[in-house]
């Protein structure tokens, strides 16, 4: 076995979630050979990976949301890896943005960071729980407070 291209494409957590959920459905329907020893590895890794990904923000995403997000991101001049991480993590604070975007102090002004946060939190759906405070105040409160 050889590999032709070790990095032919980056996958977002959402795509992997879709793939594994579809795979699980298919295998449930065909049914008979799930428990043969050969398939045990696939079962284990699918279960564990689904368990991990289902806890991340990508479980609320859909292809339209991802497309909308990428179009909105075009104006911000970010690398592919940074956009992917924003999509996977859905940061809500300026500190997280600074972690994800390299050299963010030089590339983004404070207003740009705010705008970026706003785009991320408005396009990517969050967990459905009451979030009363608007993104602006939460981000600025974060910058002053530090670790709790």
């Amino acid at each position, binding site marked *: 076995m050889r590999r032709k291209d070790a990095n032919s494409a980056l996958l977002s957590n959402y795509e992997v979630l879709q793939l594994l959920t579809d795979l699980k459905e298919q295998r449930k329907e065909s049914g008979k050979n799930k428990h043969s020893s050969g398939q045990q590895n696939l079962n284990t890794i699918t279960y564990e990976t689904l368990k991990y990904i289902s806890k991340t923000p990508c479980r609320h995403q859909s292809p339209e949301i991802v497309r909308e997000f990428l179009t909105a991101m075009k104006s911000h001049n970010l690398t592919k890896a940074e956009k992917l991480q924003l999509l996977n993590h859905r940061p809500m604070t300026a500190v997280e943005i600074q972690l994800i975007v390299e050299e963010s102090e030089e590339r983004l002004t404070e207003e740009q960071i705010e705008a970026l946060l706003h785009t991320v939190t408005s396009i990517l759906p969050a967990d459905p729980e009451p979030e009363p405070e608007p993104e602006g105040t939460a981000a600025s409160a974060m910058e002053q407070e530090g670790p*709790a």
Partner: protein
Amino acid sequence: MFVLVEMVDTVRIPPWQFERKLNDSIAEELNKKLANKVVYNVGLCICLFDITKLEDAYVFPGDGASHTKVHFRYVVFHPFLDEILIGTIKGCSPEGVHVSLGFFEDILIPPESLQQPAKFDEAEQVWVWEYETEEGAHDLYMDTGEEIRFRVVDESFVDTSPTGPSSAEVASSSEELPKKEAPYTLVGSISEPGLGLLSWWTSN
């Protein structure tokens, strides 16, 4: 976190599976071979993404099975350098903090990459971040089961394929098991603002 890797391999389908569709048999064989396994210098293979090309299938003399060369793409877990990941603390030891992602367990954050100053509490076997403020030092414990955000700073692949028989008498006389090495390990760091336990950085 996940990448698509294009690979080529020859898949052997035994005769009793000839009644099944070739694509299904091949998909099952590839998953059986690669799922949940680490490929050297590639990463942890998760599942088959798709089959891009099937070449002609051959049957060789002496073996009734068909051999098909398959070009396919596989979903592989292989975080890139400096990627931010969120995991769960599995435990602490003098070597550092061990983090797990559920499907991948060999992640270590060495003591020098913890938020400084950090000390190891021998009694409770946890690492502690001694966070200084004007009021005094807060001890922030890194307990098992807590969610932690870290940056991937290094990865290492170890070739764990068997090396073959070494001098036979020496090997058979010793009782000890060879040390089990993880084929793929990640080294993380939490020494930046925003990294570490999620509870350290959330404001309610």
